[in-house]
């Protein structure tokens, strides 16, 4: 009897270690199950759509933080890679008649190629220079998308067929949930491998990393390309979810939003930006009545987090856990 209990305990332990190796701790698993069952209980289409947006922003924030939190380069033109993926995917469906399911990865590939090129040219230089260059490229791309009217219909926008014919939102919810889960696992596996260690080393001190034999340029470009590819993937999803694309998708304000979400969530973690997006996007939506005040609060929150609490939500969580642990210890010792 004891052997069977021990065996089952060992089996569950194997499962939990395997799951936590890909980054899903018990709490995360519970939340995942809750989310997977959500459309069955939630009939309000508006809230469902809001959650889809929140998950999409979460995925994008994870990809953004992959660059800014780990190799310490702010990709200030992130929205352009998102937009390139969206436009590529949309154009392939509209002009060449591809299926949206094929066009989405194609958008990701296009963003990846652009990211690779830009990375090779500028990311090796790092710092504020890289941030500015990515910003300039984003501005140029937004301007090009707006002016190349024959291709993209310019500022009037382009309509793109959606994934599904149904008016319901739950298929999109599962698509984006699956995407977010996949990207989360992918990023966690990368971070836990030696590649992730190289990223962290480069982010903390490039010269020390280089003197330890870590090829800074190769890893920086690798990181940047992965981040841009993911942005393109979500861009493809976005275009077939919303159905209308304008060059404003690439506007700097979207990058600033993602930046705020990623930073308030906590730099250098994968789940921080995801949780932060899941909290902030609905909150911002429900505070819409406050109009400009909510954006002022948003900016003020960003400044306060930057100055006083740079670890963000993740730091809050760690503090809470440490507090509980200390309380438990003091209770058991007494």
């Amino acid at each position, binding site marked *: 009897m004891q052997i069977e209990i021990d065996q089952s305990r060992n089996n569950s332990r194997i499962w939990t270690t395997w799951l936590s190796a890909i980054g899903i701790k018990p709490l995360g698993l519970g939340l995942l199950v809750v989310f997977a069952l959500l459309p069955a209980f939630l009939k309000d289409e508006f809230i469902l759509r809001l959650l889809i947006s929140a998950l999409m922003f979460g995925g994008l924030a994870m990809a953004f933080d992959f660059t800014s939190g780990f190799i310490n380069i702010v990709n200030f033109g992130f929205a352009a890679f998102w937009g390139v993926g969206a436009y590529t995917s949309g154009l392939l469906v509209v002009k060449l008649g591809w299926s949206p399911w094929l066009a989405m990865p194609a958008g990701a590939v296009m963003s990846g190629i652009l990211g690779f090129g830009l990375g090779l040219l500028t990311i090796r*230089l790092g710092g504020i220079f890289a941030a500015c260059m990515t*910003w300039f490229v984003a501005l140029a791309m937004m301007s090009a998308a707006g002016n190349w009217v024959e291709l993209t219909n310019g500022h009037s926008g382009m309509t793109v067929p959606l994934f599904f014919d149904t008016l319901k939102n739950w298929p999109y919810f599962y698509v984006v949930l699956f995407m977010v889960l996949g990207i989360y696992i992918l990023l966690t596996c990368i971070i836990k491998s030696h590649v992730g260690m190289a990223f962290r080393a480069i982010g903390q001190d490039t010269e020390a990393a280089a003197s330890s034999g870590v090829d800074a340029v190769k890893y920086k470009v690798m990181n940047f390309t992965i981040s841009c590819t993911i942005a393109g993937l979500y861009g493809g999803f976005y275009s077939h979810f919303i159905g209308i694309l304008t060059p404003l998708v690439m506007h700097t304000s979207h990058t600033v939003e993602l930046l705020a979400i990623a930073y308030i969530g906590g730099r250098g973690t994968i789940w921080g930006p995801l949780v932060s997006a899941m909290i902030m996007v609905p909150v911002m939506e429900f505070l819409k009545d406050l109009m400009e005040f909510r954006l002022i609060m948003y900016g003020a929150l960003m*400044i306060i987090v930057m100055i006083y609490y740079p670890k963000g939500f993740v730091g809050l969580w760690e503090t809470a856990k440490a507090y509980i642990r200390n309380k438990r210890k003091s209770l058991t010792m007494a």
Partner: protein
Amino acid sequence: MPDPNHIALLQINGSSPVYLRPLEGDIFMELLLECWDVLVIAILRGGLYALMAVGLSLVFGVMNIPNFAHGELYMFGAYTAYFAYTVFHIGPIPSILAAGILAFVLGMILEKGVFYPLRKRSKRQWVMNTFLVTLGMSIILQNLAKLSWGSTYHGITQYWQGRVRWLSSIAISMDRVVGFLIAVAVITTFFFFMKKTQTGRAIRAVSQDETGASLVGIDLNFIHTLTFALSAMLAGIAGACLLSINPAYPTMGLNPLYKSWFVAILVGMGNVGASIIGGLIVGLLETITYFYFGGGWQDVISLSIIILILLFKPRGLFGVKGVKTALE
């Protein structure tokens, strides 16, 4: 293309002009006049870009802060000038001055309120942190403006009457010309201040070596506040000068912001003197693009050229080794 029958030598305010005797069908003359047109417009534009970029480079050179809220300071100057001109009915020059002074005060408040606590707290990852802080500041300022004054355009038709035609068939509005002259005057005064006065020398000392400057007794906090306030003043004056051309609205700051960043990165961050030349270069690039490719492609082409230049000279055209550059 200039019309060979109407090449005015100089015409101010619609007075009767002195005409050049046209040389019929002279292609060289036409080309020259076209180049002249482009040059004049480029210089007029470039002057204001230079004004904005000098402020940006100053803050980066002295305080090592990449100021992404610079456009909002420009916007503040525009709004102040609007209200000074339309509500209080003071003349054009006093409203521009008022915009400068109030922007100076705003810069002081922002520096003391935001950057001073940050400096006291921690200097780790200073550049990245201040970049993010200025981003937050810009969001707040934009939305404060939206709250206070609404999203509608607040513009004026003109400060000064009339148009100038100088050796071309294009009539340039007096506002642009006077705005340029004001920009030149302000930059000249600023450079005189930096080179000849004691405070100016103190600012330059802080930009070279902060520790050394404090060793010789320069009050760092005072200099930092003064620098940021000066930069804000320059941006405010630029916004006020261009009020009749670009009406004031809350998000107007993005365009001047990225133009001044083009200039700053092109010449090498922190290099204040070269920002003037950089402003003229960017003005020239834009005007040439505008003339030959149409307005929408300005950004794409001038950006592509800037990116190309930066690939070969990443420290900027005039970047100097050893001075704080964008690479740190």
